[in-house]
């Protein structure tokens, strides 16, 4: 039913795509995502997939191709990174506003300038409020598993929204890891066939897609419906996770709680840094420090009340953002966690760390220093420095 392979993160995503075999793939090369495109082009050349593969002349066109194909009724995918996602930005809210279940893989990479091909999350964090579902992955296995599940989440009748799945550039996309790959037939059965509502190509029932809606129209009602749909994605993703566990043995929640049951000091992270942080948690636990970790999987919709529930008994919590916030109140994840705590009336001291920008290494010693800060904050009850740049050169 599955095969264990030693492959890179990009190769794992390409494997998932081959098994899903979407009707249409529209893509454009960009580091560090390019390996996915190259691998898929090989499947096409070898006749292993029947996908209409369109190597577009830009990411803007790649995502626009996906919009046309998805509206026509096809299952549609794309991949990108960094500037590519930035160039797609205009079309992202169009895809969600037209309720098109396009599935995208974004390999996280910093946004220029200075131009930098390495990992941070400034690309997808800049797209967090475009109406797309966002699912993040710690490693190649999660990238593979999340990408397959994303198809079912996006196309669910109660959701019908585009979904982007992420992993860290280079550290995951280019690193060879152990990945359990499911058989094509198993994946195909899991994702099924797409059943589109009002497909453009239904010539007997012509429909108009992408209407104009001005004053006195229905714009707010469309947006309210979208809000409900993305909220539904929380429930749907958990249902899909249960089904996926049946074929893979791996079940995912909205986020992962690592040693959080009795944790006094918690760190919240996204993507591969969770792996580094878990080893720090283990080391600290050996020393008797009650350390825990929350790793975000679903970031949009944001599981606010669920996260607050998980950290409400902590003495101090650090939120780590791999994106420059450009505001002195902290990065986007920090803002979301703060608002969530405030709304739920939970007053845990919160502190923010900006780290790993442009691929800057994050070491266990950095994360240890975060936990040690949390212990100090817990003792004094005061957050002296709300936002700290971690690992910066002096």
């Amino acid at each position: 039913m599955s095969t264990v392979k030693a492959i890179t993160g990009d190769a794992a995503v390409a494997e998932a795509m081959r098994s899903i075999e979407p009707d249409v793939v529209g893509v454009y090369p960009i580091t560090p995502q390019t390996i996915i495109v190259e691998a898929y082009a090989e499947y096409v050349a070898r006749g292993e997939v029947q996908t209409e593969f369109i190597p577009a002349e830009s990411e803007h066109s790649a995502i626009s191709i996906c919009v046309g194909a998805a509206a026509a009724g096809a299952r549609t995918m794309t991949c990108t990174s960094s500037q590519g996602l930035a160039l797609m930005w205009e079309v992202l809210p169009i895809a969600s506003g037209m309720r098109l279940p396009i599935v995208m893989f974004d390999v996280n990479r910093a946004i220029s300038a200075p131009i930098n091909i390495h990992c941070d999350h400034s690309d997808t964090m800049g797209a967090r409020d475009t109406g797309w579902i966002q699912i993040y992955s710690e490693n190649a296995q999660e990238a593979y598993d999340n990408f397959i599940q994303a198809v079912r989440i996006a196309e669910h009748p109660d959701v019908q929204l585009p979904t982007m799945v992420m992993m860290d550039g280079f550290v995951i996309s280019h690193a060879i890891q152990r990945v359990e790959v499911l058989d094509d037939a198993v994946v195909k059965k899991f994702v099924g066939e797409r059943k589109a509502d009002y497909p453009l190509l239904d010539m007997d029932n012509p429909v108009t897609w992408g209407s104009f809606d001005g004053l006195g129209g229905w714009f707010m009602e469309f947006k309210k419906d979208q809000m409900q749909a993305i909220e539904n994605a929380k429930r749907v993703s958990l249902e899909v996770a249960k089904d996926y566990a049946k074929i893979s043995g791996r079940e995912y929640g909205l986020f992962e709680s690592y040693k959080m049951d009795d944790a006094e000091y918690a760190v919240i992270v996204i993507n591969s840094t969770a792996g580094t942080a878990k080893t720090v948690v283990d080391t600290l636990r050996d020393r008797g420090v009650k350390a825990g970790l929350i790793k975000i999987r679903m970031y949009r919709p944001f599981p606010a009340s669920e996260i607050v529930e998980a950290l409400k008994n902590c003495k101090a919590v650090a939120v780590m953002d791999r994106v420059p916030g450009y505001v002195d109140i902290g990065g986007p994840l920090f803002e979301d966690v703060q608002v969530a705590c405030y709304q739920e009336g939970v007053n845990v001291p919160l502190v923010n760390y900006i780290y790993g920008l442009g691929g800057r290494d994050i070491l266990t010693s950095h994360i240890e220093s975060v936990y040690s800060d949390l212990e100090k904050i817990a003792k004094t009850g005061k957050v002296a420095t709300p936002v700290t740049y971690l690992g910066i050169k002096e």
Partner: protein
Amino acid sequence: MVATIKELSEKQDLLSPGHRLCAGCGASIVVRMVLKSSKKPVVVASATGCLEVSTTIYPFTAWRTPFIHSAFENASATISGVIAAYDAMKKKGKIKEDINFVCFGGDGSTFDIGLQSLSGAFERGTNFVYVCYDNEAYMNTGIQRSGATPMGAWTTTSEVGKAQAGKRVHRKNMTEIMAAHGGYAAQASPSHWRDLVMKAEKAFEYDGPAFLNVLAPCPRGWRIPTDQTVEFARQAVESKYWPLYEVMEGEHKITYKPKKEIAVAEWLSPQGRFKHLLKDANQPVMTEIQTQIDKEWNRLIKMSGETT
């Protein structure tokens, strides 16, 4: 065999009456003529612009055939996706019928912001017809100059004053740019309906990307009477401002030759957007426009292997 006017009149308009385009709008005339030229069911894509905002006001639609719009500069990419879905579903046997695909864009979305998307779709050999309804400016946003605006024309971003007499530079030769992609490209006018229908039929039947650049006078932007749209299109052709020709895979052919010499000034003068050119001080601009027109006509004569 080109359809007769009787045959065309008996075909249902796929763009129905009741849309909210202005009185005398050239675009709606062009769209209806092109759609009547399709012998198969047709799927329409449109760039953002007058045509799109005036025909799809939710919850209404003027389109009796499938229609999609997504943004300004990506209509060619959007229809590429639709066609890819069509090809995929045809392979799977989910769709049986043969369909034509057509994309409409104004000159802003064709000459300027959508040029890359259009060029990409042509380079990939996408089997569709792209129709530019060329009204020579950004009319939907209120008459701003585009890459299609002729030299000397007043627009709200190529103003007329002491320092300049309207647009300072010539428009780009979009028909030749598209012809250089190697498929079928043609220039047409709603005034010469038979020629337009012949080119549209050819474009739909061509196995590959086809481009039609159709002059679509805009009474509002050109400052002309709303009942003179077709007449101004005709004078554009007769004065050789808008030559009717086609390029099939590199082979040029002039499809209509005006019978008598008409100076371009005759066509420009009654248009409000050119009225400042009648002043003596702006005579050099008028002369430059005429020189450019003569040069282009002579080039076309040479390209099509003719002598006069």
